């Protein structure tokens, strides 16, 4: 039914907490209650030392691996790397992935119902940060009885959560694997986020975030936002290879304003597809969380100071040569700070033409690299048991 190296049928679970005492957010606001959707693959061992937390990117969810139903056509978003014998080997590790706060895949976000009004929050949902997402994940791990993670891993926005984990809960993280990410969202990245948000604001159907009960969603705006995003996930070279200047379903230029080039058709298709699976307000909230992310700023301007207490954490920092969204020099800045702080850091800039998407595409290299790194951690855990 499913490929032999798939984890197979999985189930998304939810945890609701902060029902009495609200979760305090970085903004000063409070959220009550808080629900997190999560999935667990593999088994927690007796001493609870084999747990790996996977953090997802902007539009991801808790469904990282396996299939949700027997007829499910698509596996989870990182199925290439999570499963029996894969990089995150579910025969050895207990892999957990949870949907971030503010998103729309089962965790509390702007599309959730506000218990105060009985209607969806919309913009009344408090603005959340990467730090808030991670604090909520920590509550989930408390609930699952996991004191210390063997590793926390993620790419892009997932990588920011990894860094937040390592900086704020160093005693709970044996190893941190930030992939294709940054410790500080740059002005260019904020600018790109803002273009996406403005596209949503400009859609009349957005209606200041109150559209859930109107029967009309700001699909046009969200679609444009996603198109901009998609461009930043590719590289000039990968676009050349994928589309070139080829025309879609025609031989010559029509000299008219129709979708003519393959690349236009691809973007439009992905934009449309996105509106069927993602909530426009969540897009605003999650991109805002990205923009606020600046680990150095939280530590008096010094990125190294953020990792002063992380010297018992082993870092594996990975970047990709053609990623211009989170370019290699962002990772090098991070490696520099980790080195200055005296942390144990391994860094690799993987040669790839796939741009930011490389972290999901370069499966063979990632599998070897992550597999070797996790072998070492698992070996250490085994030795300390003896």
């Amino acid at each position, binding site marked *: 039914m499913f490929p032999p190296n798939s984890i197979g049928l999985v189930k998304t679970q939810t945890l609701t907490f902060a029902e009495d005492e609200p979760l305090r957010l970085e903004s000063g606001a409070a959220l009550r209650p808080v629900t997190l959707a999560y999935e667990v693959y593999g088994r927690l061992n007796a001493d609870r030392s084999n747990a790996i937390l996977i953090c997802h990117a902007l539009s991801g969810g808790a469904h990282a691996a396996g299939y949700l139903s027997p007829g499910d056509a698509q596996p989870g978003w990182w199925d290439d790397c999570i499963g029996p014998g894969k990089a995150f080997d579910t025969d050895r590790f207990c892999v957990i992935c949870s949907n971030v706060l503010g998103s729309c895949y089962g965790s509390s976000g702007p599309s959730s119902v506000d218990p105060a009004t009985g209607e969806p929050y919309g913009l009344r949902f408090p603005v959340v940060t990467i730090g808030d997402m991670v604090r909520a994940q920590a509550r989930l791990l408390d609930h699952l009885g996991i004191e210390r993670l063997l590793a926390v891993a993620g790419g892009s926005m997932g990588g920011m959560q990894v860094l937040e984990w390592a900086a704020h809960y160093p005693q709970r993280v044996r190893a941190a694997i930030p992939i294709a990410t940054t410790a500080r969202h740059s002005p260019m990245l904020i600018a790109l986020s803002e273009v996406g948000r403005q596209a949503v604001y400009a859609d009349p159907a957005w209606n200041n975030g109150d559209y859930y009960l109107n029967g009309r969603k700001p699909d046009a705006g969200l679609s444009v936002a996603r198109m901009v995003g998609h461009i930043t996930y590719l590289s000039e070279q990968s676009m050349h290879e994928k589309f070139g200047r080829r025309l879609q379903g025609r031989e010559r230029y029509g000299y008219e304003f129709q979708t003519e080039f393959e690349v236009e058709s691809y973007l439009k298709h992905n934009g449309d597809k996105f509106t069927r699976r993602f909530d426009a307000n969540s897009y605003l909230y999650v991109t805002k969380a990205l923009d606020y992310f600046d680990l150095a700023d939280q530590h008096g301007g010094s990125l190294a100071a953020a990792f002063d207490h992380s010297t018992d954490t082993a870092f594996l920092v990975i970047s990709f040569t053609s990623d211009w969204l989170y370019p290699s020099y962002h990772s090098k800045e991070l490696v520099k700070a980790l080195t200055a702080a*005296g942390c*144990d850091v391994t*860094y*690799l800039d993987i040669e790839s033409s796939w741009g930011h998407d490389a972290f999901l595409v370069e499966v063979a*290299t990632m599998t070897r690299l992550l597999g070797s790194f996790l*072998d*070492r951690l698992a070996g250490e855990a085994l030795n300390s048991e003896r």
Partner: protein
Amino acid sequence: MAAYSALRPDLQAVADLVPAGAKVLDLGCGDGALLDYLVRHKQARGRGIELSEAGVMACVRRGLSVRQGPLEEGLADYPAASFDVVILSQTLPFLDDPAMILREMLRVGKSALVSFPNWGYWRCRLDLLLTGRVPLAPDLPQPWSDAPRWQAVSITDFAQFCGRVDIAITAEIYLNRGRRVRIIKVKNLLAMTAVFRLEPQRQPNPM
């Protein structure tokens, strides 16, 4: 364990100069063979810097912590005296700025271990004399056209350079075809490979 004992003789000579339990940084650590040996047999706490993706992948497979990048960038990130020993094994002829790297090694480490092929070896001298071609390094059979940099240096060159920049040579091992050369007087003629331990020259006390 036997596999790890069969370290290349020049790497073994370097390893013999590393004290047990030392904090070690290996520059241009390649596939990590030396670091792996030091971690397993000398209980060293090892780190590496390596330019090639293949090298870093091999090191991670051995369970080592290695960062990819140019040596000068990597060295600059470390605070002073972060390591007991900084190693530069068979990489000297390929450096853009050897003087700067050696200075950085002695800033980041309390001591440095440097091994390099000796172009003062008699065969090299004879090659140049008889064939008119610049000789290949005794232990590094790469022609000049195959390497990004390739600077011929002899034991005498290196020792004089250290004297000029106030670097003290505090230990020396010379090898010929993997065997240690004991006749120190003619080392520049008989040694194919030199291994030096370097430390900053203590300035004479002004009192």
